[in-house]
């Protein structure tokens, strides 16, 4: 694995192997010495054209746990605001010694562009591009689901319900691809205006009622963050209206099975798409997701930076 720009680059076997490595690497978190020497001498650059403290910190910790050197490059404070192209930025970073570039970009396809054009020989890892994909988020969600159900292989037969703004969600898109690859059954639910046309072709049934979906007893409910910065009023009439139909409130929480799990990619809007009661419920695996994020990113960095120059 040279790059990871999309879940589509993974086969079922390679996805499971990646999750297996991540599972082993998650042990490092429990040690006194939380460091492995595997990537000593390698340089990882976090190239972020969008603000994301959590994802950046997660990648930074992952790289440091593997003994790589980490440079954080945030676009707002750089020459990008002076008009430098992505190609020039990436080539400059490589000339400075970057072995891997972790990129977050507002434009869908930017990481793929960087990886496919032979501008650079460094590895490219997608940390979220536009409303396209966020592959490491899907992998950490899958790892969390595997741990909760006690699987060491795939997720066959697992019923997963994804709720909220599917239209703008790269998390939902990567999850749809990976969950289907691993054999899960996915249903998506949300307001009609936020369900993109043709999304069922990625492998999902569509529901227009949260209650009806909960009645089917999903094993996992993934609540998507309402990205207030993307909502300019035309997608739903009001926040109250959205919450009334699509929030995981106490009433809907009571419909959830005793061994179901609640997932959320964070940061949570408490009281908007998820109630505090649901967020703090023992079935909520949000913090486990965060820890798994570090392990998954370690596995991805190790996978991309090992294997010679192929």
């Amino acid at each position: 694995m040279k790059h990871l720009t999309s879940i589509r680059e993974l086969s079922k076997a390679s996805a499971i192997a990646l999750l297996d490595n991540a599972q082993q690497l998650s042990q490092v978190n429990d040690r006194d010495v939380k460091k492995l020497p595997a990537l000593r001498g390698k340089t990882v650059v976090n190239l972020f054209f969008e603000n994301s403290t959590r994802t950046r910190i997660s990648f930074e910790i992952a790289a440091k746990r593997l003994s790589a050197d980490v440079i954080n490059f945030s676009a707002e404070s750089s020459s990008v605001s002076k008009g430098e192209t992505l190609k020039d930025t990436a080539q400059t970073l490589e000339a400075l010694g970057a072995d891997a570039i972790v990129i977050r970009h507002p434009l869908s396809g930017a990481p793929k562009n960087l990886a496919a054009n032979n501008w650079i020989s460094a590895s490219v890892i997608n940390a979220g591009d536009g409303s396209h994909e966020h592959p490491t988020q899907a992998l950490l969600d899958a790892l969390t689901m595997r741990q909760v159900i006690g699987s060491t292989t795939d997720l066959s037969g697992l019923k997963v319900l994804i709720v909220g703004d599917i239209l703008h969600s790269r998390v939902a898109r990567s999850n749809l691809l990976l969950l289907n690859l691993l054999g899960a059954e996915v249903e998506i639910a949300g307001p009609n205006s936020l369900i993109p046309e043709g999304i069922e072709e990625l492998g999902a049934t569509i529901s227009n009622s949260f209650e009806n979906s909960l009645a089917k007893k999903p094993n996992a409910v993934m609540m998507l963050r309402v990205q207030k910065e993307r909502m300019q009023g035309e997608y739903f009439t009001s926040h109250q209206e959205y919450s009334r139909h699509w929030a995981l409130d106490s009433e809907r929480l009571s419909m959830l099975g005793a061994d179901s799990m609640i997932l959320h990619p964070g940061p949570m809007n408490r009281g908007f798409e998820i109630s505090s009661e649901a967020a703090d419920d023992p079935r909520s695996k949000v913090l486990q997701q965060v820890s798994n994020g570090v392990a998954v990113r370690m596995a991805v960095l190790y996978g991309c930076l090992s294997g010679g120059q192929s």
Partner: protein
Amino acid sequence: MSQRVVLDGADIDRALKRISHEILEANEGPKDIVLLGIPTRGKHLAKRIAKILESIDPAFENQVGVLDITMYRDDATSTERVIRTTEIPNGGINDKVVVLVDDVLYSGRTVRAALDAITDYGRPRQVKLAVLVDRGHRELPIRADFVGKNLPTAKTERVKVQLSEADPIDQVVIFQ
């Protein structure tokens, strides 16, 4: 491909029994002994030695674990490898006598990586090395304390330890 059996099942049993006695003799008893097997064959050998130690001296506390060295290799990024579990016994390794167990001692690079890994888990009083086969050709200043069989080999030959836990039968074979 011609292959030659150099140790059969009974030979392996005898070698492990002798190693077990030697470990107890060198340590003047089972006190503080922790066995750490290196995956995958070393893990099985460590468990077998633990069983023998227990039968010889019930005071052995069955402190046996697994030490994966994948992320400590000096060529960690040459190919992508499967990372395996590390299990440190519940007593930890601080101030213990750790006996590393591996199937074949060759260049010594695996053992060097294991010594690094051990440092990250604690500070043993002593670290010793037990191997079923020492085939020579060391690339580092490392030697084994307990050896099942010294096996002179050519660098072009390969040595494979097969154990019933993972293979059809117990045997050590050498082939070109």
